[in-house]
């Protein structure tokens, strides 16, 4: 399978482990990622808080660049995914705006490219059966709280690949890699997103509640599919609950090379969650993080 | 020698689990008068009943005691059973050994068993003295009286008449139509109100089975269900309606103009006039208080132009007597007067109207021909404020209940206003929007969305006149801030209240009212169209505030009840009523005063008390009141009760 790839700005920096684990897992599953040439930032939450045309034009520029390759686009970041889907939908609904942006960017919108989140691609296009077959070391004993956050599931007309109030894609994936997804009620509660840099106490409160509820549900860690959620959950919590990207869990289960590298990048020690893993130590067990 | 059969029910384990049924059956079989004693697991079942039936037939029993659950459960069932076997059902009695024995003595089985025996013994003694009773048959006059010619009364009368029964319809106003004919358009379809009620009015007026008495009031009702004697007072209209051709010349010639009651004082009428242009019957009536002929002895302009010589200033009131078997009370409602609402102008501001007054303004037959204009200066209002809950939900200064129709008609009125004044702005002050009927919520949403009517949540504190505008002080709780509107017109949705004379009417009819004056139903869920008095049925807003849909439904239901009553050939009533031992009665008349159903009279010739059996409800009040013991209940005489006590003690 070949897909155009839009990593998003944070995958090179604050969510570097997500970028690395995504590439490794996709390779393992036979997905060839063709990075969109010269892609630009999609505007995240700032563009839509500033100007509507800009918030559609920035993702449109990336869609335009991907049209040349003609492949469906896969995005690991939930926010970028939401933005691009929204822009795509706007192109279909608002003829006037589409005309203006096509003019500004000198392209013709083809409307043929599907815009997909990585979780959707892995679980629905590749399929959980394939994932299960690739698992070498089942993550038995790991109790993972699947955290979807906002933009993977809302608004339903934009995202469209899972139930809005009780999604199960990530739950099923966690099960497929042998871990146990816990049932908890904060699956889709907001982490506060970019408010971390605007009014951090809000994010502290929201993250505090999310981690508390995960612990109450008996989780030893949280799995996410969005770099901003992950950063917020790691940096604004106070209970030492490990946060993983779902691709990292897959990497551990597939026993991929380099997963120790990803785990070292976390700001919250990941060992406590991995201790519950049965089976002997492997190259994937982390060393204690003594760089505080 | 009485041959009484005793049948003890196990009721599964409800009785048998506590009471030693075998012992009871054995003990009871030895009682004097008992010819058969048996128990069975579920006596009320088909096989159980068959056992009773068979025993009655085979052993020729003339009395039966069913020792089982409470009589309120199965007394009727077992009486039917023994009747099928040919025994008089009133000699079948229930001995309650469940609710009054096994269920309350679960821990004391011996006590329960002994008590059960005692209970059965006492009932056996009662049955020994039971008379064979037969239901009362009395005459049933298959004619109905409908009070009120509004939509509820019209519907009830029409339904009853269509089923082949005669109807007398009494309406106090000169025309039929009630409140609906005063409206302009109705929710949720915005049909013209006259299109709804006028066909019904015409149908009733022309129906061969309906005797129409308009401009008449109920004077007196005596009698009981199946046979009411009714006196109706036909008011003097001073116009011979048989001669009148409705040419209208008299109205044209009349020099006197008075405020029109139909238009709620907003319009005028002549001293001789029809109440409105579509009146049915379309015959004029003279208002004696306004007519110069009566006041000063002059004029007679109308008589001079009347070709058929229909005007008769000497016409007198007449009393019409009718006999009917049932009465439908559909006398409608009144509105909380805006004059009573001091903070909203005390009724003194011409541009502050009630909801019904607004309807008159909006009607093509109204004082402005359907144009919405201010009463003060005739200008078209641009800023119109509607205030809901005026007097309703107000236990301090109004009525605590919700008047049910105001939220809907206010939304409708706002929409009708915008249809006529497209550049106007309507505001509605509300507490809630109650729109539960079919299509109602959607209608209210449309009113808000299509016309940009601004709904402001909050009660208006006061309004006052200022420079030709009416200033309204309210709050919008949705922003939590005070609001001030300089309105051109204000419409108050005043509370729906009973008519001022409803309690008086209730006394005449001998039906109950609630604390507000609305007539009371027999059971709010199961019997909403029957009053507590047999033969008196309720329909429409006389019962409680409701919209046209529910009024018509209720009227149809009341008509069905009347038809069901008339379906039999005679009126059959329960014989377990009071009776008088004439030898003992001294004619002190205490029982007559004590009876709440007015079922006791003094026999004219014998000067002793007598019971109107059709009215007696068997409450026993007279028995308790009677000092000489002459008043007794059939099959519950003092002797019987004493015999029961003796058996126990």
């Amino acid at each position, binding site marked *: 399978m070949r897909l155009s790839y839009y990593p998003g700005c944070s995958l090179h920096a604050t969510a570097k482990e997500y970028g690395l684990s995504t590439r490794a897992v996709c390779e393992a599953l036979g997905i060839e990622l063709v990075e969109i040439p*010269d892609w630009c930032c999609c505007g995240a939450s700032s563009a839509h*808080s*500033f100007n509507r045309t800009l918030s559609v034009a920035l993702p449109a520029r990336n869609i335009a660049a991907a049209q040349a390759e003609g492949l469906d686009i896969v995005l690991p970041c939930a926010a970028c995914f939401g933005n691009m889907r929204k822009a795509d939908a706007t192109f279909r609904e608002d003829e006037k705006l589409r005309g203006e942006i096509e003019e500004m960017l000198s392209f013709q919108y083809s409307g043929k490219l599907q815009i997909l989140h990585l979780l959707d691609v892995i679980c629905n296009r590749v399929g959980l059966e394939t994932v299960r077959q690739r698992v070498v070391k089942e993550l038995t004993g790991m109790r993972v709280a699947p955290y979807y956050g906002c933009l993977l599931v809302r*608004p339903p007309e934009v995202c469209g690949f899972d139930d809005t109030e009780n999604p199960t894609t990530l739950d099923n994936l966690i099960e497929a890699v042998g871990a146990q997804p816990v049932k908890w009620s904060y699956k889709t509660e907001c982490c506060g997103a970019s408010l971390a840099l605007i009014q951090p106490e809000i994010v502290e409160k929201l993250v505090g509640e999310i981690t508390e509820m995960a612990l109450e549900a008996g989780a030893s860690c949280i799995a996410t599919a969005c770099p901003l959620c992950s950063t917020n959950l790691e940096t604004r919590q106070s209970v030492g609950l490990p946060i993983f990207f779902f691709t990292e869990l897959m990497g551990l289960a597939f026993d991929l090379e380099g997963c120790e590298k990803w785990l070292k990048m976390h700001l919250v020690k990941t060992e406590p969650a991995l201790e519950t893993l049965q089976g002997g130590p492997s190259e994937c067990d982390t060393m204690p993080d003594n*760089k505080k | 020698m009485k041959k009484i059969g005793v049948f003890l029910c196990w009721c599964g384990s409800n009785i048998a689990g506590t009471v030693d049924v075998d012992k009871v059956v054995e003990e009871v079989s030895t009682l004097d008068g008992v010819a058969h004693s048996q128990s069975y697991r579920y006596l009320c079942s088909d096989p159980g009943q068959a056992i009773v039936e068979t025993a009655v037939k085979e052993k020729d029993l003339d009395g039966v005691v069913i020792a089982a659950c409470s009589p309120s459960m199965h007394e009727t069932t077992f009486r039917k059973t023994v009747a099928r076997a040919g025994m008089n059902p009133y000699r079948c009695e229930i001995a309650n050994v469940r609710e009054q024995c096994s269920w309350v003595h679960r821990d004391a089985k011996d006590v329960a068993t002994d008590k059960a025996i005692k209970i059965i013994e006492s009932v056996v003694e009662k049955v020994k003295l039971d008379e064979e009773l037969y239901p009362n048959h009395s005459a049933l006059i298959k004619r109905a009286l409908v009070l009120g010619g509004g939509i509820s009364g019209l519907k009830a009368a029409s339904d009853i008449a269509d089923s082949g029964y005669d109807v007398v319809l009494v309406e106090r106003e000169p025309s039929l139509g009630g409140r609906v004919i005063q409206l302009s358009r109705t929710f949720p379809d915005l049909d013209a109100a006259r299109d709804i009620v006028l066909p019904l009015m015409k149908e009733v007026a022309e129906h061969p089975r309906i005797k129409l008495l308009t401009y008449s009031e109920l004077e007196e009702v005596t009698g009981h269900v199946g046979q009411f004697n009714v006196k109706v007072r036909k008011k003097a209209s001073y116009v011979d309606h048989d001669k009148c051709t409705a040419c209208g010349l008299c109205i044209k010639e009349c020099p006197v103009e008075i405020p029109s009651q139909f238009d709620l004082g907003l319009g005028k009428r002549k001293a001789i006039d029809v109440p409105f242009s579509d009146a049915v019957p379309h015959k004029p009536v003279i208002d004696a208080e306004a007519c110069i002929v009566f006041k000063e002895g002059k004029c007679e302009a109308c008589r001079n132009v009347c070709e058929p010589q229909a005007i008769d200033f000497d016409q007198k009131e007449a009393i019409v007597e009718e006999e009917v078997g049932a009465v439908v009370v559909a006398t409608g409602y009144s509105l909380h007067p805006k004059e009573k609402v001091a903070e909203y102008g005390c009724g003194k501001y011409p541009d502050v109207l009630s909801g019904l007054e607004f309807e008159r303004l909006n009607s093509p037959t109204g004082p402005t021909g359907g144009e919405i204009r201010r009463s003060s200066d005739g200008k078209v209002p641009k800023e119109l404020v509607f205030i809901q809950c005026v007097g309703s939900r107000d236990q301090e200064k109004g009525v605590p209940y919700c008047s049910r129709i105001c939220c809907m008609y206010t939304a409708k009125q706002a929409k009708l206003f915008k249809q006529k004044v497209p550049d106007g702005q309507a505001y509605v002050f509300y507490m809630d929007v109650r729109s539960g009927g079919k299509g109602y919520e959607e209608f209210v949403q449309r009113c808000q969305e299509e016309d940009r009517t601004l709904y402001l949540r909050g009660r208006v504190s006061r309004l006052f006149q200022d420079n030709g505008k009416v200033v309204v002080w309210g709050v*919008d709780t949705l922003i939590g801030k005070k*609001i001030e509107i300089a309105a051109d017109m204000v419409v108050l949705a005043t509370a729906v209240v009973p008519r001022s004379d409803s309690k008086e009417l209730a006394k005449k009819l001998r039906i109950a009212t609630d604390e507000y004056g609305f007539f009371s139903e027999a059971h709010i869920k199961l019997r909403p169209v029957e009053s507590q008095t047999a033969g008196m049925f309720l329909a429409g807003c006389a019962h409680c505030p409701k919209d046209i849909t529910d009024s018509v439904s209720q009227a149809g239901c009341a008509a069905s009840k009347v038809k069901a009553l008339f379906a039999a050939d005679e009126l059959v009533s329960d014989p377990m009523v009071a009776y008088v031992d004439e030898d003992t009665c001294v004619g002190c008349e205490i029982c007559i005063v004590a009876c709440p159903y007015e079922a006791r009279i003094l026999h004219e010739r014998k000067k002793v008390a007598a019971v109107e059996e059709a009215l007696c409800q068997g409450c026993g009040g007279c028995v308790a009141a009677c000092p000489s013991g002459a008043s007794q209940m059939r099959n519950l005489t003092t002797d019987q009760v004493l015999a029961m006590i003796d058996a126990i003690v």
Partner: protein
Amino acid sequence: MQVIWQGETIPIDFSLQEVVNRRSGQQIQLCYHCHKCGAGCPVASFMDYMPDRLFRMAQLGLRRQVLSSSTIWLCSACHTCATRCPNDIDVTGVMDTLKEMALEEKIKSRQKVAACFHKAFLANLRRFGQLHEASLMAVLKLKTLNLFSDMKLGMRMFVKGKIALFPKRIKGRKELRKLFKEIRRRGKVPEESC
């Protein structure tokens, strides 16, 4: 009709509602204040006005109060409100429209940092094409004079290799700047600097 807002008498003005509706594509007067939005909003307790109250104020034309509220800037765009609204109002979309309008009319908010953050972000984006977090943080710290918060966190992240010292400049930077300029030319887009 007038609203009395803290002693100030404000005549109502329905034109604000028309503008907001047109620009957002929503019908805010459909709101019947069930408060489902506020009840599920993660940040509602920090806002000065709940979303439905803000819409009501917009409906009545209380322009200054609406556009200076902290509500619009604290919205985290989680879309919980829009998803659950029984009248299908895209509350998040309306918040975006209100932010745009506040910036255009240069109305300062009670929430002082948000607008500054978004403008700094976009300035950074326009300069490099892909976000350079380090320089964004530096700019923000200077602008808000909030120099020392998150220092420790920043250091930890740097040590883990999560902070790129140098920006990744895209090749199409010039075209990107042209895009920004063109968008500004077509609409009333304010300056990105704050």
